[in-house]
């Protein structure tokens, strides 16, 4: 296959990755890494480099619409970014020490865990009405958004800030190690531990993953892991997909969103575990 044809193919795949990534808040890296490594047998480090770019593109591309629609909780996002950036820094320093196989297994286990916990949680649980969480109250993290699927304004309180921040540290570390935005961890953390409604969790995760990825991108960039021939079609394709995807999320039924999320996580998890174990 010629390099030009390869680039065009990667561009098309990236549009889909961006679309899916924007809707479920996971950055598209979870799609890009397996396709590049499993289908095209690209070196995992280069795939991770391209994926870092994909994460930033998904985040920045979709965030514009999500913020305007007020689905992103900016205050929660910025608060949790403290955890993700420190975690990402730790992860980027560990990446050359951790072997490839371990990365695949870690990736698989993390995604499977997220998928199972998302499936178990109740899709129609009522948002939290008031919170005893001192940090959440002090920083005024509570918010509301308009659900375009039901036409109702959903007002919610935020809790579990400490657990959330701790999980974000882990998520940041894993995203630097694997080149995913680790929205796959962020969304369940916000949804399950902090009781933020799924759509707001997804949009806020999408907002944060760009910064998480940027924290480790500098390291990858100077190591030469961001191959321009590979990263360019990924960046542009994902941007196109993310902009389209960001127009869909608001209108989606939250229950359907949850099932899409769980399905995506489980499929990729199985692929990655297989790669790491056999």
């Amino acid at each position, binding site marked *: 296959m010629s390099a030009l044809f390869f680039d065009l193919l990667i561009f098309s795949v990236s549009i889909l990755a961006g679309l899916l990534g924007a809707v479920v808040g996971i950055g598209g890296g979870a799609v890009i890494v397996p396709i590049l490594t499993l289908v095209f047998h690209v070196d995992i480090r280069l795939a991770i480099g391209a994926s870092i770019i994909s994460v930033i593109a998904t985040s920045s591309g979709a965030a514009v619409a999500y913020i305007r629609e007020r689905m992103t909780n900016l205050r929660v996002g910025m608060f949790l970014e403290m955890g993700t950036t420190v975690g990402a*820094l730790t992860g980027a320093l560990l990446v050359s020490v951790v072997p490839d196989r371990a990365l695949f297994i870690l990736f698989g286990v993390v995604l499977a865990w997220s998928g199972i916990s998302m499936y178990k949680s109740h899709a129609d649980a009522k948002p939290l009405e008031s919170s005893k969480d001192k940090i959440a109250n002090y920083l005024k993290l509570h918010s509301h958004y308009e659900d375009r699927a039901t036409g109702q304004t959903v007002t919610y309180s935020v809790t579990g800030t400490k657990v959330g921040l701790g999980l974000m540290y882990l998520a940041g570390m894993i995203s630097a190690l694997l080149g995913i935005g680790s929205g796959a961890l962020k969304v369940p953390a916000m949804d399950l531990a902090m009781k933020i409604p799924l759509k707001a969790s997804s949009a806020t995760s999408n907002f944060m993953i760009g910064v998480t990825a940027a924290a480790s991108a500098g390291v990858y960039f100077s190591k030469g892991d961001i191959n321009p021939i590979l990263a360019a079609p990924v960046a542009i394709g994902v941007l196109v997909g993310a902009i389209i995807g960001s127009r869909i999320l608001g209108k989606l039924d939250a229950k359907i969103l949850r099932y899409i999320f769980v399905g995506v996580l489980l499929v990729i998890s199985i692929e990655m575990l297989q790669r790491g174990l056999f």
Partner: protein
Amino acid sequence: MEDEEIKAVDEKVEDSDEMRRAEIVVSMVLLVGVSIAATLIGLGIAITFIQNHNLASEPYKTVASRKFHFPTTPQTIFKSIIHGQGIGITLLGLFALILTPIVRVATSLLVFKKSHDTPFVLITSFVLVVLLTSFALGRLNL
């Protein structure tokens, strides 16, 4: 009656002009960053393939591999751009994309500072310092 209930909860929600301003500024920064990056990357990769006919027909496994070398330091990227090479322009675009979230954090810091929201000034400052540290460490890793 339902409206009243919503109002009661709403009082706890931070819905000030400050947050509106932050939202507008943040989404503008992202939009501009993404537009610049996409233009440079698209232009750069097109020029790269036009400049090197061999590259386009080369098997992708040699190009999308560790054997393929390209500039990675600001100096060499700058040199590549000066020489009108597409690869330099592509890398500049990718760099602009990476910078976008960082500039987003920096501008939201300014918005919070302007509205004297001290906790969030501290939070965004902390995030910015960590981001800049990781960039500095990235350079050292060479």
